[in-house]
């Protein structure tokens, strides 16, 4: 129940934004996210932005994964030693 994709707000006119994901653009309603700005990433579900993406958190989560990968690699090296 959850088909929603992250897309970048390119332009805003009234309550409608043109958003872009992977080179595809689409009009989307900002009625549920009136504070969204050009350049923001939003989550799009059935033609509506349902939330603004927190880019810092996204980056942080990826950093966490990188960290887990790094630790795993070091443990492996440690075992080989």
């Amino acid at each position, binding site marked *: *129940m959850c088909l929603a994709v992250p897309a970048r707000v390119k332009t805003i006119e009234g309550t409608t934004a043109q958003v872009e994901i992977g080179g595809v653009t689409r009009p989307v309603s900002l009625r*549920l*996210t009136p504070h969204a700005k050009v350049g923001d990433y939003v989550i799009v579900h059935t033609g509506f932005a349902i*939330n603004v*993406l927190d880019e810092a*958190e996204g980056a942080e989560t990826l950093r966490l*994964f990188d960290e887990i990968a790094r630790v795993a690699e070091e443990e492996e090296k440690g075992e080989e030693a």
Partner: protein
Amino acid sequence: MRFLTEFRRSDLAAPLIARIAARSRTAVNFMEFCGGHTVTIFRYGIRQVVPETLTMRSGPGCPVCVTANEDLDRAIALAHVPGVILATFGDMLKVPGSRSSLQAAKAEGADVRVVYSTLDALDIARKHPDRPVVFLGIGFETTAPTVAASILEAQETGVSNYSVLSLHKLSPPAIRALLDAGETAIDGIIAPGHVSTITGSRAWDFVARDDGIPCVVTGFEPLDVLQAIDRLVAMVEAGEARVEIAYRRAVQPEGNPVALRMMDEVFEPAPAAWRGMGMIPGSGLRLREAFGEFDARTRFPVDPGPTVEPEGCLCGDVLRAVKTPHDCPLFATACTPETPVGPCMVSAEGSCSTYYAYARDHDR
């Protein structure tokens, strides 16, 4: 695609999988509530890569699957009202009701149109001011606010031929009912990511607080789901029960206040019938009286006809995770996506259709 592709990286998945395997000692059952998570799990084969200690169970978070036959029959009857245009999301088109389906109704001459968004239904209403346009509102808290927004817009711009048949449902009451029924041991819950962007992770506090079950809200990419499993394992092994957000880029504890307000303005909680779970109080959404003119249920009273449950269908048991699709004697024999007996085989994220599409040849 930013914020999508990075969360599919296989080089980051492997260490996460290894960590899960290293930490998991206790045999546990984890349930993903949302059908979308079920699809991710099967599409990438996550059940195959997690240790044998973990049993994954799929829950009732498929709004198509949990739609009761009587409600679908009502929608089909509405489609047959002369002059009515019934607009629906594609998901509902082939779901079998007691006697028919929206697709069959369409073939018989009913004007049934598939739309991508409620706004498309509004557009249809504007293009055909002389005909009533009924939008079939299904979905949980992710979708309900968009429908609320469409009703508000209809009201603001005077689109009086637009109405909604609300079959919307709320997720927390379903989890509450499932836990109360106690039919399956659940040691950890993967909570729905996009529902939670609206409701906030706070909506799941009761799971940890009242039932002592750890809960992780996560997104729909493989790394998201693996992260949720990793966190659940960590909490289980430490004997802790909290609600955590693994989908921090999209979910906050308080959710989306604008969406919640809009939902509350247009809808109020009401009892709703869930396939396989019966009537759950306060689990559905009905239009408030102030929006009565947009309520298709009262505007077009129709007789849905006698409700007939499909014989031998175990959708209800599958939805409550009491049975898996493989336990159903009809699975992949009498019941296939082309000849579905129940909705779980038709919905794109129904357990049965997911098993069928990705895993009917093996168990895990």
